[in-house]
């Protein structure tokens, strides 16, 4: 148990991948009427909702949305941030200035305001949520990559590669980018948790995943009407989110410890100023 974050996130990934086998049947189909709002028990370990649907089954299926949104939006953000950071760090000075001002503008908005504004502009959907989270999450990555690229461009092997007449794209992708990968990976893993949290809030507001797609945030919203008579409906989806986000935050720390030789100097820093 030296890497609890790695183990936890792997388990969650397995649950999401095997959801149709772990919880067979359509999780959105209405259950028997006499099974509605059953408290946790032998037949339904985590109880049922007002339509007689098993909470555990729905949680298992809901994990797919959280992980999908978390991974895809972070991948988008990291690719975008890495590209912009590389261009800013290695490209001409004026481009660097433009990109850094753009980063400042995006960072000036508390993320949730920007996300809500963008999501409200068209019909809510999961795809939109992923796109918006990707579009609003690249800035810290871009800054990080730019800083690393700026220091790498002074290093002998990059200077040599340039001296040999290699084109800027080749230098960026073949010589600088591979050396950035540890930084990028750590930044990515630390951002997944935040993306999952934001997605759950959007789905809670009804601006994310729409029925019949199951998401943990929407499950909490449905349970909100039953805070007193069915506590399990709000409690368990929330716990699922907490466990998932804890897993990814720990994974980020573990990756950093392995990949980033200066992690002790930077310990704790990535947590502040990263997410909304």
């Amino acid at each position, binding site marked *: 148990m030296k890497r609890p974050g790695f183990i936890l996130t792997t388990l969650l990934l397995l649950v999401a991948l095997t959801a149709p086998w772990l919880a067979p049947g359509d999780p959105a189909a209405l259950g028997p009427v006499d099974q509605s709002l059953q408290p946790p028990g032998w037949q339904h370990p985590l109880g049922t909702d007002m339509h007689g649907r098993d909470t555990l089954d729905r949680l298992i299926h809901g994990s797919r949305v959280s992980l999908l949104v978390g991974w895809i939006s972070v991948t988008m953000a990291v690719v975008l941030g890495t590209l912009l950071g590389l261009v800013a760090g290695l490209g001409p000075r004026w481009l660097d200035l433009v990109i850094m*001002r753009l980063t400042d503008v995006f960072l000036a908005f508390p993320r949730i*305001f920007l996300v*809500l504004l963008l999501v409200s*502009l*068209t019909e809510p959907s999961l795809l939109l949520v992923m796109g918006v989270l990707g579009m609003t999450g690249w800035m810290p990555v871009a800054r990080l990559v730019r800083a690393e690229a700026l220091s790498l461009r002074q290093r002998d092997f990059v200077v040599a590669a340039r001296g040999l007449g290699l084109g800027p794209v080749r230098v960026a992708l073949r010589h600088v980018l591979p050396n950035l990968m540890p930084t990028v990976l750590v930044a990515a893993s630390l951002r997944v948790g935040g993306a999952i949290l934001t997605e759950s809030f959007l789905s809670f507001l009804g601006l994310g995943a729409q029925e019949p797609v199951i998401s943990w945030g929407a499950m*909490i919203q449905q349970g909100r009407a039953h805070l007193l008579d069915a*506590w399990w409906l709000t409690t368990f989806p929330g716990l699922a*989110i*907490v466990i998932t986000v804890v897993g990814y935050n720990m994974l980020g720390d573990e990756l950093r410890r392995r990949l980033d030789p200066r992690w002790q100097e930077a310990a*704790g820093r990535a947590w502040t100023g990263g997410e909304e």
Partner: protein
Amino acid sequence: MIRFPSPLSAWVLRRLLTSVLLVFLVVSAVFFVVRLAPGDPMDAVIGSADRDLTPQEIRDIQVRYGLHEPLVKQYGRWLSGLLRLDLGISLGQQRPVRDILAGSVPATLLLTVTAYALHLVLALLAGVTMARQRGRWIDHGIQTVGLAFYSVPGFWLGLMAIMLLCRQLGWFPAAGMHAPDAQFMTSGQRFMDLLHHLVLPAATLALGSFMGTARYLRASLDEVLAQDYILAARSRGVPENRIFYHHALRNALLPMITLLGLHLPFLLGGAVVTEFIFGWPGMGRVTVDAIFARDYPVIMATTLTAALSVVLGSLLADILYRVADPRLAPEEEGGPRS
């Protein structure tokens, strides 16, 4: 860049200029994002009418909100309106957006300032305890509990608090800022009533965020405690408590000033979530309501307010830090490359 005789004032001046540019860019971004997005802000008004509007009526509405003019002209009016603090008229509530903001910003300020005070106290306690008890069970305990709180969705934490502390135990009111009969209270009672309503939203906001600061403080303390002057103090026989609080903590707290600027977006973002759950009549609540009503003038105004306070906050924190720590070279991150 021009060189000024005093590096600090030159730096402050440059920082001010970039902030003004940033404000302009932010203001423009808010305008163009809304106007150029698919879907017309008018759809909300037209959609909310109880019958089909005639083309003439639609035209009238467009004229009323200035949407019939070319984009550049609208942009110009948006800018000049902002200079006069005129934010337009709410589509949903038919009253000036400025009045809506003026009515909600104080509530958000009260909530975020209280929450931040609580956040700092918790972070200081947790950070200092972790650094002093380094590697012992209490260090690991705080890390684990803190990580859990850090990973909790704010809206769920709020719901859990409402479920347990308000509905089950009845210790706190579940929603709003004042009791329904607040107008009949004496001012002392009103104040206590306000505090009573404030406890849970502020605690929710603080609990979800303090661990980031606590970890930062701990890392900062670790760094300082490894410095030579700490070793020198130890070798002189300075008591351990004095070394920790007098020599180490004061230096470790210095970089925390910059966090002030970094935390503003977190606090304002967290306020959106918390205010929504607890029915706190602040800017976050107004924003979410406006999102549902597609009330773009209001959304634009609250988003702008949030962004501008972030720009201002980080500017102040940066300047404060430079003034507080003269060791810093005037050019560092964000400055021109060497």
